[in-house]
């Protein structure tokens, strides 16, 4: 079966065609990052406008690249949350109309669940149970997946998503937007020796908090600038990134032990961070745990993961109603 996936929850407009939930026929992504760069973050109304402009040409191109005629599509899947309401509504409305026009089922997909399925696309042999750590500009989640469609969210961020903290630190260090790759690059030149936060106030839980860490960097930079002293940008980047990764490591490996899984999957844009990959790879090898992460174009937001996830959802639960509402704060249950 051919599945059409549509993703518009944040600042990537994406359309993909996936066969049988596992084989990518096309996976097109139109990033809006250049439209939001000067604002230092995603502007929701602007994002929604860009989605509507981009979506139809992208849909046409995705079918053409897949070599698929519209009447061959058997299922239409679209993200219905979590995300920015204006953007979600564009993809969701288009997808429902397509399902109506083609007389095929429609299925709404949880974006966070979608990120997990990026790993199933990239690694066909992968099977649950597994633990998935999703880190991006929009989310930080530690999820135990018992089987397809059955999840337990062990931990999530109490404030900023990891990627959001990267963006803000990049901004105060004058590195531009988006911040993740810039901080990653600069950190390689620095020493992670500045203690930014003394204690882990969420110790013992699986939840995350990055706002204190981010504020510590911002305050330190402002203090140094006021005194006219040089800002050790590379050391700050290395220290900040090191502490983010340490927190992610501590929660994740504790969960690996507690849930006795030997499969760990990483997902989300921040999973492309070089230090994160290196430290998780090393620790996984030491513990004999199988570590998976998708290639970059499946790490960041994309519609192939939505199509794959939608396929499994539909097989398990059937189609979603055509009046399914967008759910900006949708949770994974």
């Amino acid at each position, binding site marked *: 079966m051919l599945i059409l996936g549509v993703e518009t929850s944040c600042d990537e407009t994406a359309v993909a065609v996936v066969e049988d939930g596992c084989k990518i026929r096309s996976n097109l992504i139109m990033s809006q990052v250049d439209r939001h760069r000067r604002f230092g973050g995603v502007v929701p109304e602007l994002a*929604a406008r860009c989605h509507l402009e981009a979506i139809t*040409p992208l849909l046409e191109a995705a079918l053409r690249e897949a070599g698929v005629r519209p009447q061959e599509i058997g299922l239409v899947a679209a993200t219905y949350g979590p995300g920015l309401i204006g953007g979600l*509504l564009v*993809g969701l409305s*288009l997808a429902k109309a*397509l399902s109506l026009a083609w007389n095929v089922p429609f299925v709404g997909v949880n974006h966070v669940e979608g990120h997990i399925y990026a790993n199933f696309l990239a690694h066909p042999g992968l099977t649950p149970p597994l633990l998935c750590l999703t880190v991006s500009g929009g989310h930080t989640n530690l999820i135990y997946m018992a089987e397809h469609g059955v999840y337990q969210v062990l931990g999530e961020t109490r404030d900023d998503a990891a990627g959001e903290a990267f963006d803000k630190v990049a901004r105060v260090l004058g590195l531009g937007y988006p911040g993740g790759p810039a901080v990653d690059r600069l950190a390689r030149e620095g020493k992670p020796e500045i203690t930014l936060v003394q204690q882990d106030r969420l110790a013992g839980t699986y939840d995350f908090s990055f706002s204190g860490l981010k504020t510590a960097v911002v305050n330190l930079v402002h203090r140094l600038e006021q005194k006219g002293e040089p800002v050790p940008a590379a050391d700050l980047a290395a220290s900040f990134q090191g502490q983010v990764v340490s927190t992610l490591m501590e929660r994740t490996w504790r969960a690996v032990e507690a849930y006795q899984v030997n499969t760990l999957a990483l997902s989300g844009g921040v999973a492309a961070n070089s230090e994160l990959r290196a430290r998780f790879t090393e620790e996984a090898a030491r513990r004999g745990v199988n570590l998976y992460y998708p290639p970059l174009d499946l790490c960041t937001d994309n519609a192939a993961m939505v199509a794959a996830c939608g396929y499994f959802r539909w097989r398990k639960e059937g189609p979603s109603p055509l009046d399914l509402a967008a759910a900006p704060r949708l949770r994974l249950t």
Partner: protein
Amino acid sequence: MRVLGIDTATRTGALALLDGERVVWSEQAVIRPGGSEQLPAVLAEALRATAVSPEELTLIAVGVGPGSYTGVRVGLAIAKGLAFGLNLPLVGVPTLEALAANRQTGQLVCPLVKSRKGEVYAALYRWQGAQLVAIDPPGIWGLEELAARLKARGEKVVFLGEELDEARGLLADRLPEQACFGEGKENLVDGAAIARLGLAEWEKNKENQLYTALPLYLRRTEAEVRWAERGCPG
């Protein structure tokens, strides 16, 4: 021709199916805020009830606003999905023009859609025969500014539109000799009007707007306006 007309720019969303001159389905319903995603389900029901299969449609006409940004986008996304999926042409219709079409009169017609406090989306039309001719295209008007402009014209004006308590009060006060107001359903966008105007536009220009139709926002986003004013995101 079987034309589907959709508009979700204002509080009352509209959907109609036209078969030639005949309206075979028409529905107007208050859209709860952010709830225009119900529309595909309503449409599915309309097609079932009229025993029209989607493949029998020939044209999709959709209101492009001005009005609620989100609302207009949902309408356009649905229209584009249908037009693409059914391989049909799509035509965008200004929502204000459809509103003006509710009153055939020799007087000036001024359709209004609620905007921010003290402002309205407005346009000015006059009927010439069976044709609505735009005198002022859709724009954003301060209420005082709009009243002053119409006062200068010195003619009677029919105002149409819903959710306009503030505007009605002011316009009635500033234009006591000129202003009259629509009643009941005249103040609601009609899907059949969208369909008729879309069909007329299609027959005139034969231009499929599937890729080009976009909302008539009339305003840049707040972030862009601030940027233009200060040269920074602040």
